[in-house]
């Protein structure tokens, strides 16, 4: 009997933690949307590699609209070496799975790099991870419109 009570208490304890997590979900979604805007719209335009460095995990990986795989270093170099960049994002959707969040939305990236004009639009899918109390991006897929 004592064993059953113990199990029941543990089930309830688990449920209460799950409930607390669900209650926090809107906050997490707002946070991720803010981080998406900060990393893309602001840091790209300002060529703020310091902010990007903080927001991207050291093992961050990007698949760009051409289907090429890029590392964090590649992305920082791209932003740093661009003459100008403008990244805009539309309405975003965020799904939270505990310490992992996935954000998706439509984007438009325009700019000039080494004198060449860049123009992409399509959809992105980003994966964020809560690591040591900070949300960091671990993967990003950018899909160009066909």
């Amino acid at each position: 009997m004592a064993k059953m009570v113990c199990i029941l208490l543990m089930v309830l304890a688990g449920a209460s933690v799950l409930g607390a997590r669900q209650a926090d979900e809107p906050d997490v979604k707002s946070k991720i949307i803010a981080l998406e805007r900060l990393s893309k719209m602001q840091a790209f335009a300002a060529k703020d590699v310091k902010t990007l460095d903080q927001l991207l995990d050291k093992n961050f990986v990007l698949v760009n609209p051409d289907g090429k795989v890029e590392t964090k270093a590649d992305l920082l170099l791209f932003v740093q070496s661009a003459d100008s960049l403008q990244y805009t994002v539309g309405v975003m959707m965020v799904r939270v799975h505990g310490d992992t969040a996935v954000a998706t939305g439509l984007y438009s990236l325009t700019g000039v790099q080494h004198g060449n004009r860049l123009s992409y639009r399509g959809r992105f899918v980003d994966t964020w991870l809560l690591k040591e109390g900070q949300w960091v991006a671990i993967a990003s897929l950018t899909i160009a419109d066909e």
Partner: protein
Amino acid sequence: MDDLTWHRMRTRNWIVLFLMACAGLALPAQEVSDGGTVAAIRALEQEWTVGQSHNDNRVLDLIFDNALIYVEYGKLVTKGEYLARVKTASPELNQVVMEPMTIRVFGRTAVVIGTYLEKQEQGGHRDMKRWRYVDTWVYKKNGWVLVAAGATRVSH
């Protein structure tokens, strides 16, 4: 026995109550070794490919999270829409050849990056496209589930 099978069998066991109690608590990353995780994710990716090629959306239903974010040909589709399409797709007209993949494990999250070759046949015309995909898997109480997937066409 692979990790997935073990986790699914585990849910049928009485011990599940204890595991459910702990579900809200953080599972230490070390509890799932990277080697085991990589093998489990690879097996799930394979299961997905086989399930899709056999129009078997029941298999996919088990490995896809209900809140799945799936981008197919640039369009966002729900799990329900994707499963419905898989069920009615004509596999002989659309063949997929999987190529090597890389799996990165971040504790209870895994990211898979790989390529596949899609061979399409429409109106007697054959077309081949290479796609690079990014899949995100999260470890939940019943095992690893796919929470996000999408692919972009590889430019020549």
